């Protein structure tokens, strides 16, 4: 409930998860740092092996440090590898 129930009416935007349906969220995670060298952009890979942690939180009042309300509903970790080589 973003604003008080006494001043809300209608819906401006619906950010809830719709029922009986599957929705997909895409995340692109860059694994590099970037710097300028001789007028060119150079990218350095951070690690070839790394882990991606995915956590799904339900934050009914918008905050994580909100015990009794904030909930961690799901968590998983995936081991990732980007092959070395290929210039």
């Amino acid at each position, binding site marked *: *409930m*973003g604003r*008080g*129930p*006494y*001043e*809300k*009416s*209608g*819906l401006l935007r*619906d950010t*809830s*998860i*719709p*029922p*009986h*349906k*599957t*929705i*997909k*969220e*895409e*995340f*692109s*995670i*860059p*694994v*590099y740092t970037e710097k300028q060298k001789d007028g060119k*952009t150079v*990218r350095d*890979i*951070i690690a070839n092996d*790394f882990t*991606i942690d*995915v956590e*799904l939180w*339900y934050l*009914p009042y918008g905050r994580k440090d909100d015990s*009794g*309300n904030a*909930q961690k*509903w*799901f968590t*998983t970790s*995936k081991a*990732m*590898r*980007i*092959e070395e080589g*290929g*210039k």
Partner: protein
Amino acid sequence: MSINKKIFSLAMITLLFDSSLTLANENLPKDNGHAQELIGITEEKKAQTIAELAARYDSAPCMDCHMEVYDAWEKSLHARSIFGPDKVGRTAATLKTTIENGLKEWAFSGVKKPEDVGVKHLMICAKCHLPQLQEAEDSVAQEIVKNVYAFVDDPDNLEAKKALQSLNIGCMVCHNRNAIVHKWTDGTPQKDAVYGTKDDVHMDDKHPFLKQSKIMKESIQCGQCHGLGPNFELENPTQCATLYGSHLFAYIPEGGQATCQECHMEKSKLGHNIQSYRSPEMAKMALDVDVEAKAFQWRDVSTMTPAAQVTVALTNKAGHAIPDG
């Protein structure tokens, strides 16, 4: 002979009926525009104090024989419906905000100070948080407002907290007052009955009848308070819960079939401890999550982009959008 007798007894019935109607009318407060509505709901006088209104809808007497149900209900938010979650009392706090930032600010509300708040002002919330407030005088609204301010200003004020929690969505709200939606079709709830899933006798002296409510197992029972959108029938429409709208217009069209009761009372095994995400049982039933991740080098002419792509698929298994609000 027998025809005569019949006509005679019919006349008697009409007479009795008439006089009881007059009686009911005499009992009504003189001033007030709700008189018509009131006949439909109750023939009693309006409650003048919190204690009186609480006593009319007291769940304690049901405890003697329905211990388990009572214990479960007591843990639910329905048992503190103008107070809100235990300790925090967010609903009470929001009632104060409604008066301070809403009613007092609005040019045409008739409220300049908390002492001006009457039943009709609180009904913009009580429509769902305490529908029986309709059967109370403004003195009860005033007492509620005093206790709301007392609690919000001092959360250790146990007396205020107790007074606010004594008013709630108790047994007789669901099993009597709100057990019939279509009153032209099915009549108004009978004071001496509890409404359940069948017609029978009931062991309780004060409510010797068990009556069938046609909606007890239907989503509309819960939908009465769980909101469709703006509450247009109010002079100043509010909007709080809209979840019944989502159930009707999103879940059902997508092929959903379960009722509120099936998920929240049966599958959850929580019975009358009707809960949402705050209980692990419900949280577990909420979503299916599927995660896929790939890592790769993306080459754009001479620029290399090491990256990972994560796709999270979320399937909402509830009977409505998550969250409500």
